């Protein structure tokens, strides 16, 4: 099973992939409306917003956690 290179989400169904295209290495949540992959800053912001929404984290703590998580993912090697 593929994992999104940008957020780590497991991708099983075609709808999990960007543009519903299983050949893509990133998921639907990491794609811009035109299908391209979000930038580092865009992904960090959206992941931080996810942590705030789901667990109520302080925004700055959420951003730090998001960047620490992204540092382990293939798409962002050497960025954080």
């Amino acid at each position, binding site marked *: 099973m593929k994992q999104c290179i940008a957020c780590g989400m*497991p991708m099983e169904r075609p709808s999990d992939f960007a543009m519903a295209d299983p050949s893509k290495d990133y998921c639907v949540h990491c794609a811009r409306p035109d299908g391209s992959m979000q930038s580092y800053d865009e992904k960090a912001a959206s992941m931080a917003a*996810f*942590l*705030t929404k*789901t*667990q109520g984290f302080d925004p700055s703590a959420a951003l730090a*956690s998001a960047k*620490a*998580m992204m540092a382990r993912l293939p798409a962002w090697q050497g960025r954080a």
Partner: protein
Amino acid sequence: MSRREQKSQTRSLILQAALRLYARTGIGATRSSEVADEAGCAHGTVFLHFRSQEELLAAVIEDFGMRIAARLHELATRGAGLRSVLEAHLQGLAENEDFYARLVSESPTLPRQARITLTMIQSTISQHFEEALAAMSTAGPRPALHLMFNTWIGLIHHYVVNRDSFAPGQSVLLQKGPELLDFYVGLIGHAAGRGES
């Protein structure tokens, strides 16, 4: 068995061995040499699969958490309802309750990588809560997702950390789980303006 399958099997054995030891003796007290002995492999083999003890711990948390999250995801996406999702959450935690109790108790002192992994797992589970909540018809505005999720997690963690007082010698999640589930579902129903059965 191919070389790749063998490697995957060894990795899995190391993860299972580490989880058992973390549960038995504590996360901070477990040494990588003990994990190797428990898994029946050489000490160096552990580091062929995991670059450090921190990476091994994060992998154990991810493996444990994602198995639970996958079950909740499957239930939520087929419209199983909040109660079924919460039951599956309790069941998944109860299967490795000793480990989860260590994880919750030691969380503030764990390495950052482990804490970040746990954070992402909890957010993923919270997201599946929301999917289940979306299937509930409600009369009024619903409280914020993070408050509903944190209330549930806070309740569970209090019982897990103090399980010696709530269910001595037993699984507190199996013993008290149905009571907590009934209470929480009722609470959520009231908060959302209706009673959910």
